[in-house]
């Protein structure tokens, strides 16, 4: 299996939004933090944020890498070239997306990465009526190709696709993945927000439905799983009447342990709250 990475292109001007999209509030966190967190759950390798020089970004986990886009305003292929070059030595494939996809689901990322893992240079979803080059998987060996295209002024992703092997994933192909079909049936993963109205509409949607369970001394009278809505682990903790911290930890889907309340949640997640001290 290929080593996979994540690349988030955060350097756009957000001109239609009127405020930096990366820093938009999202259920107590930010859009960029959410995007990075969702990709981190799937990518086994590094996650890198491509930013404009001097761009101020919201707080992110310490293991996130940053790369400055050397040529601002050149579009996504330029960001793609910078991001792929930054991780080429550490990963074979990468999921690449923009920062403005609040409903991106790990199951979508996993399905798209699989196309590249199976041999394609690009795994390109075609969803909600459009190709989605900024929610796609790329082989990192494409870095020099993307760089050359930028130098040639050929800035549209389609030029890149002309020079490599692309597996196109239409909606039927995406929904053939039973996990993705169950957790993101409308392929909301590719919904992006560009204007204040988009943001307002997205923000007004209910948070993802997740399952929480409290264990041990944290359970009190609430034993067993409970369905709630929460977009972050902190939100889930609050719904459980808990606060993450030195003595309370969360396990996401029985896997990683976290005290980071901004860890994003997606539909279908389960969160276990445990006492931090596991002495026996």
């Amino acid at each position, binding site marked *: 299996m290929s080593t996979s990475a994540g690349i988030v292109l955060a350097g756009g001007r957000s001109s239609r939004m009127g405020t930096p999209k990366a820093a938009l509030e999202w259920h107590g966190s930010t859009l960029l933090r959410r995007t990075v967190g969702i990709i981190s759950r799937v990518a086994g390798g590094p996650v890198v944020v491509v930013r404009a020089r001097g761009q101020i970004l919201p707080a992110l986990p310490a293991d996130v890498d940053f790369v400055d886009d050397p040529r601002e305003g050149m579009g996504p292929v330029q960001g793609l070239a910078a991001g792929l070059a930054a991780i080429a030595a550490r990963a074979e494939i990468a999921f690449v997306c923009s920062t403005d996809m609040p409903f991106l689901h790990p199951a979508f990322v996993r399905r798209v990465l699989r196309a590249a893992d199976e041999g394609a240079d690009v795994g390109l979803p075609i969803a909600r009526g459009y190709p989605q080059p900024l929610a796609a998987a790329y082989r990192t060996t494409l870095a020099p190709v993307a760089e050359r295209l930028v130098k040639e002024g050929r800035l549209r992703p389609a030029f890149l696709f002309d020079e490599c092997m692309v597996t196109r994933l239409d909606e039927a192909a995406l929904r053939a993945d039973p996990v993705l079909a169950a957790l993101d049936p409308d392929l909301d993963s590719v919904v992006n927000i560009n204007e204040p109205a988009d943001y307002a509409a997205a923000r007004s949607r209910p948070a993802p439905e997740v399952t929480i369970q409290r264990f*041990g*001394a944290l359970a009190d009278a609430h034993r067993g799983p409970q369905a709630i809505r929460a977009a972050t682990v902190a939100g889930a903790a609050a719904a459980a009447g808990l606060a993450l911290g030195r003595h309370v930890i969360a396990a*996401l*889907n*029985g*896997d990683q*342990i976290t*005290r980071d309340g901004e860890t994003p949640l997606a539909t279908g997640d389960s969160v*276990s709250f*445990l006492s931090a001290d596991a002495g026996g």
Partner: protein
Amino acid sequence: MAAAGYFGRALIADVGDGSATELPLPDELLRAYLGGAGLGAWLMHRLAPPGVDPLAPEAPLAFVFSPLVGTPLTTSAKFAVVAKSPLTGFLNDALASSHFAISGKLTGNDAIVVRGACATPSVLLVDGDGVRLIDAADLSGRPAAEAEQRLRERLGRGWRVAAIGPAGEQGVRYATISHDGRHAGRGGLGAVLGAKRLKAVAVRAATKVASADPQAVLAAARDLRARSFGPATAKYRELGTLANLLAFNAISTLPTRNFQAATFAGAPRLAAEDLSKLRSVTRNSCASCTIGCEHIYSARGGKQMRVEYENVFALGPMCGVSDPDAVLAASGRCDELGMDTISAGGTIAWAMECVDRGLIDAPWLRFGDAAALLRAVDEIGARQGLGELLAEGSRRAAEHVGGGSAAFAPQVKGMELPGYEPRTMQALALGLAVNARGADHNRSGAYEADLSGNHDRLEGGEPHVAAAIESEDRAAVMDSLILCKFLRGVFSEPFGEWAALLAAVTGWDTDGAELRQTARRIVLAKRVFNIREGWLPADDWLPERLLTESLQVASGRVATLTPERLRGMIDGYYAARGLDGQGRPAGRVLADLQLS
């Protein structure tokens, strides 16, 4: 004149001829090794003949106290029993809390060392009048608690008793020494006492011990007491350690059916969350403890017993048994026999798998069979039937049975693994592999790091090495001062805070940096003892099963601990500890140990 908090001497009782001698313990030495497990390691270097058979008369066994014993500091009434383990063949220290610690220290000794062997079953008495032996023929075959009660009735008020059960008399290699219902549980030190034909050691206080700054100690005691009621200890207070069971099941760290799985479908039947409602009778505290982690449950037939996570894990999921009555009964029977439940459960689980694979002809012993579990426990305690083999522990039993069964014997250095799955807790995996005692969660509690959220618990690497070392160092100091590990969560700057406690008691100007150095010294002294006793680099390793079979966690991720990854972490550990590539210390590291 010894530093405050100490007497500056160890009493060495030879139970073969009834004599006693005194070993001076200079301040410099006490400051270097503190007490408890640390001082015990130094005593074994000094007093155990190289290569000695742990069950031979000349093998010493030490009850080691600490500077904090006798102070009002919560959880400080603890002591270490230290000897060469008959289970591992390496250094072993087993800690317990009880009034025995206070009375034992107030005999006027920082340690009581027993060597030799009695001609007939006896009890060793130690008080202000010195040592003497009394006959114990009437106590033979009795559970430790019963022997303790009878002795206290016979000897009168003021005597505190540490005794062995039938398993210790039978030489079960994981027999315990118990007192006040608590056990110095791991490593078979009950068998060492049994080999000396000592049913018990009884102590009576004869003196007092002063602190250098009583007001400071009192203030610290008040502060610690208040903190011990806070959220850091809530788990222990409210449900006890059994609270781990369901939580561990949710995160795939509950060893099941001899480490063939990390989740157990029957876990909810054994969970503290429900059992405590149905069966909880009361809570209890060790001597001088304000946490009160002991949860006493009622079992079928009206018996009452302490229930701990490790007991339930080892005799429940590990053996595939989900019947709470059977698990509680097996746990209670281990208490009566005086056997370490972790090693008992681990060895029985290994045997169950051997039966499955046709390597042992005992068709009655199957995973999930509650009656078989109880029968196996009884046979081990009596060394009868299959028990003769299983009383040896899983490593020796696997060597005897062969057929590749060593690959799934759940042990490191001969000690059975505790209830934490190393493949899904990879900092702990390193800690279990390299620790001098063997596979034990109390000497290397690196599971704390795995549950910290600071690193990926399924992908061991450099951060896990640092975390395992930090955990091992903290344990070395806590086990030597001695403070209960359940208190660890209340310390924000542990080494500095522990140094302040030590300074108030002793008057030394100890600081956190010095205690960190002390921790390293104690950890390495244990390693050096093991090297002297034949340790080889291959002993710092995990069972083959854990390195060749993967586990899937609930998220779908696969947890794999490859030999290469473990090797990398071990190499990192050796380098960080100043050891050579073979895990051996040299030069300046050795000189600091003050062993010559």
